[in-house]
């Protein structure tokens, strides 16, 4: 889903089977110069069509190939994963939008202290989204501890999650603002492995060392042992440092007596490390350090701790320590803790690690983004980035307090999903950012950056058969152009598939788009009708209340409806006629079929010619049919012919004078109509006409006598 970098196409998916090609038949006359046409079709498919001249009679005149293009991303997240994230983010997003609406209306009335602050809602949203991006990193300590494992290889974290957490930390989470440096320490601990390929990291150093640990006999003789301890300490992974220190040979029981001083020093350093004061509200269990919430307390503790380190550094015990590596290694650790720049620089791999070590040991009181930014620039100067990394642009944008850069970088590196969802974080606490992202821009066609990114994301969703149905949630949050695009999206969905059609209509109902819903039903009706599914066609046109088309198809239908009661084919129509039953729904000209069926039923009920009541009903039904202008002329004669039984009723004349006259007039009209040019000749024998005329005349005579 992320868009490929400008100017270059994404790589072709390396599927073992070549994409299928479809023959293209055309009847274009030669001479024909070959042509190639390229266009995008659904999703990431590129359609290549080739028109050429058929070489022979049997050959087709062209070919169409659909090529599936991979997403332009680095493959960190597969398409299916992206869809899962897209599905999962619908609810949090919709919830936040509805909260925003009620929040803005509420805050206008009163600013009650009982209501949550806006950023708290955003935090809730952010936590929901974050949980979609991957599991929380399992804690570094498992239940059964292997003394030789200090780095747990957990599920590979993603840059996407790392970037999200970074933005959450800086923009949404107001509670953690005083502890930002410590939050960054934790963040790097979780995501340092992401930088391994680009820069080489403390994490990868530790991992390599852990793999070789089994082969090492005397661990403290190996310079790498001291190197990795220094690195881990520099980035604040105190648990790992202490654990590694306790692997020191002097702890072994058989050596304890010989190396008492040495062991004492190792232990002293380990204890000092584990007592490091941290400016943060709390630490997870099993994590080392002592927490201070208030700055004065922290400063006091910090100075005391630094004093202890200094004291140990000047201690006379170092001279008694005969193991050179241990002595040098431990003193280097002390230097790191004292904030010695060259030690820190040597211990860290890339600028972020150096940056973190600054927060921990050089400037633990850093506050404010301005100073954080200048520090970051100094660290980048000291350790320049050899190659770029996805997260760096976002990181520097955040520290530089440049919201537009952050948005542009996250959109470029992580795609439209990120841009559309991260805006909520960016605007969480800052009026400036809100104004910047919500301001309508002339250059964007009078829409805001926020709307732009939502529209782009909605377009990406719309292009996929499985995700198009969540696009309306995003489109409906776009005030300017959302509804217009939503209409286009709904019209674009294919109508033949029933489930899809019903989903489409459901979306219309949710957003109160009655006109569109009725148009879609008309499209469905016409589609089914054209494909011979007359029942479905009539149903959907009825649902759409499209009298015009119903009248049209009625004329087509009448041609094929069986005309006589004895006609067996009429039975087939029963099912369709049943559909027309509901009174509320417009049936158009088709209403006639319903009445015609009812009339036929009545005639059948009369049966042997004794049932007076039924006969009278049949007469009324006949009169209604003959009077109704929607009764097609071609049915007049069959109707009258079917009613011969009624006209020749034995006991008494069923039709009175005026009724008979009306029927006679209709018959006359029919005879005149024969002379007109467009007359459709009924496939009825002439005798029928004569016998109807005779019966009508007889009935007229009887009726006159009766009256």
């Amino acid at each position: 889903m992320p868009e490929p970098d400008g100017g270059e196409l994404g790589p072709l998916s390396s599927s073992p089977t070549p994409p299928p090609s479809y023959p293209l038949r055309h009847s274009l006359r030669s001479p024909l110069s070959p042509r190639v046409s390229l266009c995008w079709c659904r999703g990431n498919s590129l359609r290549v069509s080739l028109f050429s001249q058929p070489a022979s009679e049997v050959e087709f005149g062209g070919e169409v190939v659909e090529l599936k293009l991979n997403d332009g991303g680095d493959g960190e997240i597969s398409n299916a994963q992206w869809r899962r994230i897209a599905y999962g983010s619908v609810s949090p997003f919709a919830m936040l939008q509805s909260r925003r609406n009620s929040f803005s209306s509420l805050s206008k009335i009163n600013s009650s202290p009982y209501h949550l602050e806006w950023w708290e809602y955003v935090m809730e949203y952010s936590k929901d989204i974050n949980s979609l991006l991957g599991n929380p990193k399992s804690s570094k300590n498992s239940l059964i501890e292997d003394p030789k494992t200090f780095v747990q290889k957990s599920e590979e974290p993603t840059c996407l999650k790392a970037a999200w957490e970074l933005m959450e930390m800086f923009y949404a989470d107001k509670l953690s603002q005083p502890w930002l440096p410590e939050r960054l320490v934790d963040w790097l601990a979780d995501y340092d492995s992401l930088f391994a390929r680009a820069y080489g990291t403390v994490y990868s150093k530790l991992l390599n060392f852990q793999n070789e640990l089994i082969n090492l006999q005397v661990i403290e003789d190996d310079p790498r042992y001291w190197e990795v301890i220094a690195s881990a300490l520099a980035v604040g992974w105190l648990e790992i440092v202490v654990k590694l220190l306790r692997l020191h040979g002097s702890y072994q029981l058989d050596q304890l007596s010989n190396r008492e001083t040495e062991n004492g020093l190792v232990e002293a350093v380990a204890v000092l490390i584990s007592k490091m004061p941290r400016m943060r509200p709390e630490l997870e269990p099993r994590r080392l350090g002592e927490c201070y919430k208030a700055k004065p307390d922290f400063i006091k503790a910090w100075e005391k701790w630094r004093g202890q380190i200094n004291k140990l550094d000047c201690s006379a015990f170092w001279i008694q320590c005969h193991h050179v590596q241990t002595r040098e290694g431990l003193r280097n650790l002390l230097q790191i803790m004292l904030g010695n720049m060259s030690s820190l620089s040597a211990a860290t791999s890339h600028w972020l690690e150096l940056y973190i070590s600054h927060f921990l040991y050089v400037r633990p009181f850093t506050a404010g983004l301005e100073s954080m930014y200048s520090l970051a620039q100094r660290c980048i100067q000291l350790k320049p980035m050899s190659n770029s990394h996805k997260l760096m642009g976002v990181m520097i944008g955040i520290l530089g307090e440049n919201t537009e850069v952050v948005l542009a970088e996250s959109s470029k590196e992580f795609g439209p999903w990120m841009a559309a969802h991260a805006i909520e974080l960016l605007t969480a606490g800052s009026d400036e950012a809100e104004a910047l992202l919500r301001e309508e821009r002339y250059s964007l066609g009078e829409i805001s950056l926020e709307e732009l990114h939502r529209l782009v994301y909605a377009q990406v969703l719309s292009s996929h058969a499985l995700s198009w149905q969540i696009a309306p949630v995003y489109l409906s949050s776009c005030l300017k152009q959302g509804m217009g695009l939503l209409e286009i999206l709904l019209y674009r969905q294919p109508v033949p598939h029933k489930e899809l059609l019903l989903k489409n209509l459901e979306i219309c109902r949710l957003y109160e788009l009655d006109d569109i819903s009725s148009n879609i039903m008309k499209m469905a009706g016409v589609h089914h009708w054209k494909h011979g599914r007359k029942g479905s066609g009539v149903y959907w046109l009825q649902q759409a209340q499209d009298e015009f088309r119903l009248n049209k198809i009625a004329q087509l239908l009448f041609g094929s409806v069986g005309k006589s009661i004895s006609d067996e084919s009429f039975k087939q129509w029963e099912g369709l006629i049943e559909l027309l039953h509901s009174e509320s729904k417009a049936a158009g000209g088709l209403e006639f079929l319903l009445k015609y069926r009812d009339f036929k039923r009545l005639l059948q009920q009369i049966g042997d010619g004794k049932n007076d009541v039924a006969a009278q009903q049949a007469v009324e039904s006949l009169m209604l049919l003959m009077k109704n202008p929607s009764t097609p002329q071609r049915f007049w004669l069959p109707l009258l012919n079917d009613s011969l039984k009624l006209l020749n009723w034995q006991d008494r004349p069923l039709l009175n004078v005026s009724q008979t006259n009306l029927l006679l007039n209709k018959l006359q009209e029919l005879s005149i109509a024969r002379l007109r040019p467009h007359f459709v000749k009924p496939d009825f024998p002439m005798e029928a006409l004569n016998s109807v005329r005779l019966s009508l005349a007889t009935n007229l005579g009887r009726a006159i006598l009766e009256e």
Partner: protein
Amino acid sequence: MAVTQLPRPPEVYKLPQYKYVDAVRWLPPISALDRHAVLALFDSDGGSSTVEIHSLLNPNPDASSTAKSLTTLAAWTPPSRVSSLKTTNLGHRPFIAVSTVDGSVHVLAAQNAHSLVEMGAAPRVHAGPVSCIDLVEGGAECVSVGEDGRVNLVSLGDSGVSSFRFFDSNGLVSYSAARWASPNEFATGGLGFGLQWWDRRKPGGPVSQFKCNWTQGRASGIVHSIDIHPSRKHTCLAGGSSGTIFAWDLRWQQQPIILSGVVMGDGSKHSVSDSSEVWEVQYDRDVKSSNASNFSSSSRMLPVMMCSEDGILAVVEEDEEPVELLAEPCAINSFDIDKQNPSDVICSLEWESVAILTRP
């Protein structure tokens, strides 16, 4: 929407599949201990469909967590996307009937959980997609219906699969649901909330039709699913558009029993899902013994489970508030109640996942 919550909510496990779940059913038991489900999946990236047997596992049987997972054991590739899926048990062997959007019907047999064998196919018995198939209980006979207006009987015999066109309305009527009532009778449903009753001994048309103007001016709709309880073969339960669930008693022809949805006259009915499509209905087999006596004698409707486009899975009873089991932000397209273990329900969610519910 007034819905009561269960005193104890069911345990729900959501299992993402990363493929669209076209249909889902429990598979009749192959062995005493294992439990299996059949899933029809559509991979939108590759554009391919599969029918797969999954085994339902408890990954940590020792741990207190009862989290579940699905593992693919066997798979079969249909020629096109699956439109309907049914299972039955025939001679202690599970049979699966599959219909496709290309109008074909396939009969598969599971020799064991690891092999899924196609016993035969009836290609292109419908013009266009097959809307619905149903396998007769304990037999290898299938009824299939489609929008093209055909009613086909597909049966598995010694010489493979044979099909017979029982009726063809030539598109004048479209059918969207079908269900056997007995080895000879079945019901179908379609547009305008119409239901038809058929008897294979009386070909040439439906024996009885149900369609009356009971929607009272409200939008008419489509029947999406039918169920018939083995102990009450005269009642045909149907679910369809506008949150409608109704039952048609053959002995009492023109007046339906309405369980949900449409308002009748002045007496308003409980509606479980406002104007949304009810995709599937099944009689709830998980009736606790205390309630069972209420139903056995009286003419009261048995409880019904339903799933809907607006993401509700609920149990509906006549004249009572519906009990909601699951409320999802996406559609629940189908579900199946385990016949052996009726407190367990498996359902397919629109957002490429499957949910398994275990009721207390």
